[in-house]
C-alpha cells in the first residue's frame, strides 16, 4: 500500500494488488458498514424535521453504492450520519467493527481520518493551501511523515491527472479540477470507504462525466464508495442503488432489477 510504497517504483500497481488481494474481486460477506435503526431529527427553534426515521443499511467492502431520492428526503443526512460527521438521535452505526457513536469524538475523528474519505458537492478545499497540501492533509493527521505525505499526495494527484497543478491554490483551478483534487484527497489515505455527496452537482455535464469516469475507475481498483446523486445516469451505473424517501430506505438492489420491478408494478396496476 502507499504507506509502505517506498520500495515500489510503481505505487499505482502495488496499490491495486493490495486491494485485489484484500477484496478478492468480489464484495466480501462481512459488511464494512452496518447501520441499524438510525434516526435523526433536526430541531430549529420550534420546528422539527425527522430527516432519518429508522434507517438500516449494510455496505460491503468493494461495493459502489448509489443513493438516490427526491430532494429533501434525507440523502445528505444519511451520508452525514452514517459517516459520523453528524450526530444521530438513535440507532447504531458500525464501521470496520467499531461502533462510531460509542467512541469519543477524538477516537471517531481518528477513525474517520484513517478509514473514510469525503467528496462534497462544493469541493470544500482549504483555500490557502495548494492542491498538494490539501491532498496530503489526511495523511498528516494520521501521522505520516511530511516528506512521504507530499510524495503520496503528488502520486495521487498524478492519478487524477493533476500533477502539473500540484502547487496551485484551489482558487486557481477550475471546478472540475478542484473536484479532482477533492477526489485525490478522499483517496490518498487509502480509506476503507469513500463518501461522495453529489460530486458532480456543481459541474457541467462534460466535467461531470470525467468525474463519474474517475469514480468508476477508483471503484474498479477496489475502492468501496457510497455516492449520493441526482444524476440518473450516474445512479444507474452502479451495481447497487439505494432509494431514500421521506427519511427511510425504500429500495435497495440492482438498478436493472429495480427498473424491471417498477415496470412490472406499472403493468400490474
Amino acid at each position, binding site marked *: 500500500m502507499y504507506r509502505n510504497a517506498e520500495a515500489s517504483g510503481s505505487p499505482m500497481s502495488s496499490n491495486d494488488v493490495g486491494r485485489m488481494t484484500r477484496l478478492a474481486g468480489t464484495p466480501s460477506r462481512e459488511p464494512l458498514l452496518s447501520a441499524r435503526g438510525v434516526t435523526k431529527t433536526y*430541531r*430549529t*427553534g420550534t420546528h422539527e424535521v425527522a430527516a432519518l426515521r429508522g434507517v438500516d443499511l449494510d455496505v460491503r467492502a468493494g461495493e459502489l453504492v448509489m443513493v438516490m431520492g427526491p430532494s429533501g428526503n434525507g440523502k445528505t443526512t444519511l451520508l*452525514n450520519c452514517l459517516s459520523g*460527521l*453528524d*450526530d444521530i438521535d438513535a440507532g447504531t452505526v458500525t464501521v470496520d467493527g467499531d461502533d462510531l457513536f460509542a467512541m469519543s*469524538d*477524538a477516537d471517531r*475523528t*481518528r477513525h*474517520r*481520518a*484513517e478509514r473514510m474519505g*469525503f467528496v*462534497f458537492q*462544493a469541493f*470544500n*478545499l*482549504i*483555500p*490557502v*493551501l495548494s492542491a498538494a*497540501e490539501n491532498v*496530503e*492533509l*489526511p495523511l*498528516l*493527521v*494520521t501521522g505520516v511523515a*511530511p516528506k512521504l505525505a507530499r510524495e503520496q499526495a503528488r502520486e495521487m494527484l498524478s492519478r487524477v491527472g493533476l500533477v502539473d497543478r500540484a502547487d496551485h491554490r484551489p482558487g486557481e483551478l477550475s471546478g472540475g479540477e478542484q473536484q479532482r483534487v477533492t477526489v485525490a*484527497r478522499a483517496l490518498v*489515505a487509502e480509506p476503507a470507504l469513500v463518501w461522495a455527496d453529489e460530486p458532480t452537482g456543481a459541474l457541467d455535464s462534460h466535467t461531470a462525466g470525467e468525474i463519474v469516469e474517475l469514480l468508476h475507475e477508483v471503484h474498479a481498483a477496489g475502492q468501496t464508495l457510497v455516492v449520493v446523486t441526482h444524476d440518473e445516469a450516474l445512479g444507474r451505473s452502479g451495481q447497487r442503488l439505494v432509494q431514500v424517501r421521506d427519511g427511510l430506505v425504500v429500495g435497495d438492489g440492482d438498478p436493472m432489477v429495480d427498473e424491471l420491478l417498477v415496470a412490472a408494478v406499472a403493468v400490474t396496476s
Partner: protein
Amino acid sequence: MTAVAVLAGLAVFLLAPLAVAAVRQRTLVAMAVRNIRRRPAEAVLVVAGALLGTAIITSAFVVGDVIEGSFADVARTRYGPVDITLTPAEGADLDEVTAAVEAAQIDAIDGLLAATAATATLEAPQRDAAVPQASVVEFDLAAARDFGSDPRITGVADLRVLATDGIIVNERTAGRLGVQAGDTLRLHAYDSNVDLEVSHVVAEVGLAGYGGAIVAPGTLAALAEQAAVVATPPRDQLLVSLDGGVFDTRELSDAAVADLRAAAADLPGVEVEAPKARVLDDAQAEGAGLTEVFSTIGSFSVLAGILLLVNLFVMLAEERKTELGMLRAVGFTRRRLTRAFAIEAAVYAMAAAAAGAVVGIGIGWLVAVVAGPIFGAADQGSGYPLVIEPASLAIGASTGLVISLVTIWATSLRIARLNIIRAIRDLPEPKVARVRTRTLVLGAVGTLVGAAAGFAGYLGDNAIALCLGVPLAAFSAAPLLRRLLPERTARLLTAGTVLTWGWQCTRCSVTSWAPRT
C-alpha cells in the same frame, strides 16, 4: 519583577502547546501565515483591536513612571550628591560634627561638605525684581567639585573661583530676577544688605540647585554680624554624599542616617535628615498612586478590550467556519483544530502585545503631560521626562499577551466544538435554550472568585481587586440569574450593575486624588 516572572511564565505556558504544534505540524503554520497574509487590512484591524488591552495597561504604568520621574528629578536638580544633611544646634561647632562623622568611619559615605545656608531676599535693582525667601548657600567651590564620586552631578564642576563680592545664581533664580552674568544683585539678610556681582548663571543641578544662589564663604556671616537682632542666623550644615550618584543611593540612606545619628549622639542637638530619600520616596508613592488610579480607570477599558478581542476572534473563526468544518471532516481532532486556529490568533496576539506596549508608552506619556499638573507635578521645572521603565513595558506587554492568549484559548476551544456539518454548510449554531451545567458551574466559580477578589480588595485597600471583582462576580452570575429570571431582565441587571459600578469606581478613584490638586 515577580509579577513579570509570573506573567511571563503564564504566557509561556499558554504558548508552549502552540509552539510544539507549530514545530511538529508545519501545515498549521503555513495556514496561519497565509490566512494572515491573505487579508492584510483585516490583520491590521485585528492587531489594532487586540492591542487595546496592552496599551491601556502599559500606559497606566507609564503614567506612573513619568510622574515619578518628574517628581524624582528634584533629586537631580536640587540635591545631586547631597543625600543627608547634619545640622547642629545654633552656635554649635560644625568642625566637631565633622570630626565625629569622620571618626565613625561609615562605609557608605563617599563625601562630606561643610556648608552654610540661609534664607534671604535677592533683589535685582536694575530690573526692579526680587525673589523673597531665596535659599542662599556658601561652600568652598574647590571642595564642592570633589564632593561625592561624580563631579558632574554637583552642578558646580566647571566653576573655578568665586570672588568675595561675587554670586552664582542658577537658571531658575536668574529667570525670576531677569539677570545674567555681570549684573548686580542685592542680597538682603539680617536687616542688612550687600551688592554682589553675578559671576555665573548655571543650570539648576545638584549643589547649584540646593541653593538658589551660591555666595563666597563668610558673606552671610558678615551680614549677620552687622545686624542688631538675628532671628534665624545662618545655619552651618554638614552635607553628606553616599556611595553612588543621584538616584542609586536610596538603599544606603536609612542605615547611613542611623549610623550618623549614632555618631553624633554625644553632640547636642544635631539634626540628621535625608531630604533626597524623602523626595525619591514621595515620587515613588505619587507614581504608584497614579498607576493605580489609571489602572483602575483603565481596567474597565481592558474589560471592554477583552470583549472586543473575543468578538474579533469569533469573527475570524466565523469567516473560516467552512474551512474549519472541512478540517474536522478531513480528520482534524478538536484538539488539533484548536491549535490550528490558536496559532493564527497567537501571531496576532504577539504582534498586538508588542505594538500595544509601544502605543501604551505614547498614551501614558500624553496622559502624564495632560494630567500631571492636576496631580501637582507641574512645578517641577524639569517637565515630563519620557521615562520608559523596562519593567513597566514587560508587565504591560505580558499582561496583554496573557489576556489575549486566555481569550484565544477560550475562543478556540469553543470554536472547536462546532458541528462539522453545520460548519461546512455555514449554518448558524442553534441557540441553546437550556443553560449548560458546565456554564453554571463556571458561573458559580466566577461569582465566588469575583466576590472574594472584591471583598479582599475592600479589606486590603486594593482598588483594582475591588473594582474588578464586582463586575467579574456580576458577569459570572448572569447564567445563574438566567435560571431564575427572564433572560432580558438578567442581562439588563448584569450590565446595569457593571456600568454603575464602573462609573462609581472611576469617580471615586479620581475624587480620592482631588485634595492633592
